[in-house]
């Protein structure tokens, strides 16, 4: 099977940019990253479908090879799904901005709590029955 090198390179660039943006903290950038990534993946389906040919509509094209219609159907489905999810992500970014003034993805609060306890080499209050003194320290710290 011969593959279209332009498509492969374009796909690689899109996926690379998408992944880079996905690693950002701001939800809007993540969203753009997801969009780029999904477009890259959709191109991959076109690469997977083999060399381009005539439109795959029976009876309307002359002889000669047709394109494979199946990956195109899959790409269409994937595009629709991405559209829906992007809309949701956008709404969530907006909600996050409404609530906190920015759309940054935050760390897990309780994770951070445990990490801090570990850094100070203390045990959690659950560990030894939670005396009041420890809770005070913890409470004062939060």
């Amino acid at each position, binding site marked *: *099977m011969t593959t279209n090198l332009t498509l492969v390179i374009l796909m690689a660039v899109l996926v690379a940019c998408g992944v880079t943006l*996905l690693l950002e903290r701001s*939800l809007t950038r*993540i969203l753009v990253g*997801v969009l780029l*990534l*999904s477009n890259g*993946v959709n191109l*991959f*389906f076109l*690469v*997977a*479908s083999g060399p381009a040919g005539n439109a795959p509509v029976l009876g309307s094209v002359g002889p000669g090879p047709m394109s494979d219609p*199946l*990956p195109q159907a*899959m790409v269409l*489905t*994937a595009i629709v*799904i991405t559209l*829906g*999810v992007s809309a*949701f*992500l956008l709404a*969530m970014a907006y*909600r*996050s901005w409404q*609530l*906190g003034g920015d759309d940054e*993805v*935050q760390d*897990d*609060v*309780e*994770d951070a709590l*445990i990490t801090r306890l570990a850094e100070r080499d203390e045990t*959690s*209050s*659950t560990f030894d*029955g*939670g005396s*009041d003194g420890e*809770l005070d320290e913890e*409470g004062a710290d*939060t």
Partner: protein
Amino acid sequence: MNVNVIIPLPVVLPLLGAGACLVFGRSARAQRLISFGVLSAVVVIAAVLLVRADTDGPQVVHLGAWPAELGISLVADRLSALMLLVSTVVTLCVLAYSLGQGVIEFGRDTPLSVYFPTFLVLSAGVSNAFLSGDLFNLFVGFEVLLSASYVLITLGGTGPRVRAGTTYVVVSLLSSMLFLIAIAATYAAVGTVNMADVAQRMDSVPPGVQLVLQLLLLTAFSIKAAVFPLSAWLPDSYPTAPAPVTAVFAGLLTKVGVYAIIRTQTLLFPDSPLSDFLLWAALLTMVVGILGAVAQSDIKRLLSFTLVSHIGYMIFGIALASELGLTGAIFYVVHHITIQTTLFLVTGLIEVRGGSTSLDRLGGLARSAPLLAVMFFVPAMNLGGIPPFSGFLGKVALVQGGIDRAGWLSTLVVAGSIVTSLLTLYAIAKTWNRAFWQPAPEDLDDLDHRWSSGTKSGERWGSVDALSNLTKLPTAMVVPTLVLVVLGSSLTLVAGPLYGVSERSATELMERTPYISAVLTDDTDAGDDPSTAGGE
């Protein structure tokens, strides 16, 4: 009449039900009736499918009567039907529980009209993933259930939920992208996405390419199944959602990932070179997960970590790639879906009764709520693998499978699984002691004050205060939980037949031919289908 008409129903009915729920968005009563009716019907259908799949082999329907290589096939073999039955029974119980939970009725921070339709869509997605006979439809099933889960996990749009939902959505999106890449690569390699057809053609693919495809699929599914090191998202995102939502997520969503791993590993890559690799993944998932659980002081988080940890048992069974291992894995999935869901529902009740799920703030529940204590104790011991319960039986099967396999690695994983089991017991015992036996902390008000300043936990608990002064648990929530507790315990009573079905499923999976030939060569059924599929 061709009974295969009913195969698409577990997908179609909930979707139609979701539509109907939206139409009757203003009437909570109608919504309840519709969702309860639809899910009950699906339970019956799933039971019929399981009986048929067990007696007559895999049941197949080709939608629109397209040939299997081109169209969408839905397949109900023993594994699919079993998963479908267990998942819908659990979903039904959770639905009943959420009917009883005030949250929806009061509309406190939950939009009334959205919950039931979304719940039904989630159920449709899960059914579609279980029944799907081709990779792309599996992807669609995943997306349907994930989209529904995005809505459910951020229900109400409060700060903590949006924060937790963000992580969840982004991770899920990434795994979906990986899955899509895997599908495209599979299509490029073998020219089809129908799993039976892929399985046939995979032999002619070079081993290197096979390995790449296998790794891609494994990574995508492992994120969904929360296999270490791809599990970090789970304990972070599950605990903030409402109790029934967490329960259904914990019970079903990760198991759909496990199901997909079982299906693809056994069907597409029967002579897997990754067995050792998976054994390591299983070991690390078990041990790291349970160590996380031991460190937690919030019951929901603790349970989320045990969830991750026990996924390791299932991966262990799959990694063994023997009939005994698979039998154990399937049995364990059934047990774990029921038990984990029950525990999360009970935690919801604890939250209602004690006003919190933090072990620092709970206490004395065994005295003040004895029924709740029993409802927690039984499934908790079941999870810990105490002998009469099904958790023990599943683990025995897995341990046997592990010892039967030659090599030091599987013995190491067996040792790891026993340690994990003991640590689970430790974590559970800690919860039991602190929440149920120990007297309640005295300065509750004081604590309230201090904790609610700024932390997300304070915010979360604040919303529960309205319910926390209930001295009596709402019956409508207790009954479904009790049903699930009884169901989970009775898995021991039906362990013989259940183990039999698991064993036959495992045999069927290992043989592969029943599945492949049922999908690809049932011309007679395909001939009947235009009338049936046209009706959909």
